[in-house]
């Protein structure tokens, strides 16, 4: 099994979800995070004084998939979340040894 972790721009979340659904991904876990990177946040002016905001809001998606699907899933995410502008995010794959469905105790492929 693999874990695909994707950090993407918030407004792309809906599109990514739909694309993954179409591909056949049946579940994922999503959270709101803040990103730090080349995309530099923004400058805010407050009472005439300027401030740099370093962090940018992002969505983090975690999907456990079978080994064979990992690259496809990454590909779909990259294609769908791409805008070509700095800050589009990262996707990484890491190994998972085992996954269980809490409801049934099913293991691995059967647990997805």
């Amino acid at each position, binding site marked *: 099994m693999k874990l695909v972790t994707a950090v993407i721009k*918030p*407004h792309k*979340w*809906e599109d990514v979800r739909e694309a993954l659904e179409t591909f056949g991904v049946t579940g994922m876990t999503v*959270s*709101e995070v803040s990103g730090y990177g080349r995309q530099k946040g923004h400058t805010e002016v407050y009472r005439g004084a300027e401030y740099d905001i370093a*962090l940018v*809001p*992002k*969505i983090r998606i975690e999907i456990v998939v079978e080994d064979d699907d990992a690259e496809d899933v990454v590909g779909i995410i990259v294609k769908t979340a791409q805008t070509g502008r700095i800050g589009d995010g990262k996707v990484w794959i890491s190994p998972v040894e085992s996954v269980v469905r809490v409801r049934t105790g099913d293991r691995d492929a059967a647990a997805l």
Partner: protein
Amino acid sequence: MNFAYDGYYAWMIAATSFVLLMTAPGLALFYGGMSRSKSVLNMMMMSFVSLGVVGVVYVLWGWSMSYSDGFSGDGKLFANPFDQFGLVDTDPLNYIFVAFQLTFAVITAALISGAIADRVKFSSWVVFLPLWVTLSYFPLAHMVFGGGFLSGAKDGLAEMIYSAGDAAEVAPLDYAGGTVVHINAGVAGLVLCLLIGKRLGFGKEPMKPHNLTLTMIGAGLLWFGWFGFNVGSIVFTADSLADPEAFMTQFTTETGLVWINTTVATCAAMLTWLIVEKIRDGHATSLGAASGVVAGLVAITPACGALSPVGSIGLGAVAGALCALAVGLKYKFGFDDSLDVVGVHLVGGIVGTIGIGFLSTTTGLFYGENAKQLVVQIAIALFAIIWSGVVTLVLGLLIKYTLGWRIADEDELEGIDFVEHGESAYDLSGGGGARRSILTEGVSA
């Protein structure tokens, strides 16, 4: 016609509006902020719907049942609910008083809801409202304010205790509703929260206020509205009604005194509540300040016309300290008076009602020669406790065994806002501080 009236009427329009503001949004905010974020809307709705239901009921039979016999001093328990049904036969000169009294009935009913937060079927509350005001509020209003059994009336309670002459002298004092409003609502809250039982997790989880800024706004609006409540409760003497000059004098001096007393008692109660907290818990909290404000306002309500400013500071100080200690009792005795209706309104109402017996500048034990006023005050407090207690118990049981009071346990855990009202109070994503994501937004069907 007495031309001095017109300023007084002008004030009564404002005062009546002030009191309506106390319920919506004042009390709704005070209670809403103290509840959990999953039940704030239900809490606010309980206040709003009290206004909706009691407002209509009041015009239909509430006024008639309370005052249609013209303050005749008959010593009765209530007046005829059909006499001025729908205000059809009400003298238009009384309209503003109908309005003023309407707002009192509304807030008294709404006050009760704080004792049973987060766990009650909305429909059961809606059914309880007209029954309770009809059987508990309208009668007590008639008895105390309408020349009934708890006023200085012939055949009234005071006369039962003392001879007729004395009774007139030490007629029960309740300027703006220590018995009718606060003891009444406080007892009802106690009875209902015992009957309905604790919230799941009570005593184990803190169940802290989810938004104290709302509670502070609510406390501020309640204070403001309370000027309508207390200062609007002036009743003119026969002399004043006969003589414009006397009218003007009473109007200008009594309203000023009541305003000051209302304020300084509240200031003092806020301070003593904070002091008790600082000593007992190590911290003076904003919830304590807000609660102290309400405790002071409650206590001075019956007493605001009878005390001196310095006496009012004293009464407020005692009320703030006692109520601060009283709100802890629910954990001791294990009853879930969720938002401290008992600790603040029942205790504060008793402190104020009985405090008059000591502090009244004319008949109080500290000023006058005897304890007669004190005895009368204790008697009316007890009577109000019993009346409200019995009525609420009967109605509470009736609903318990018909509609039922409580929502299902899993619904209570999930949150009553979503389950009963299909809503949640806040959706701060999709904006907010970090202009966060769209995670909580829906996906179209």
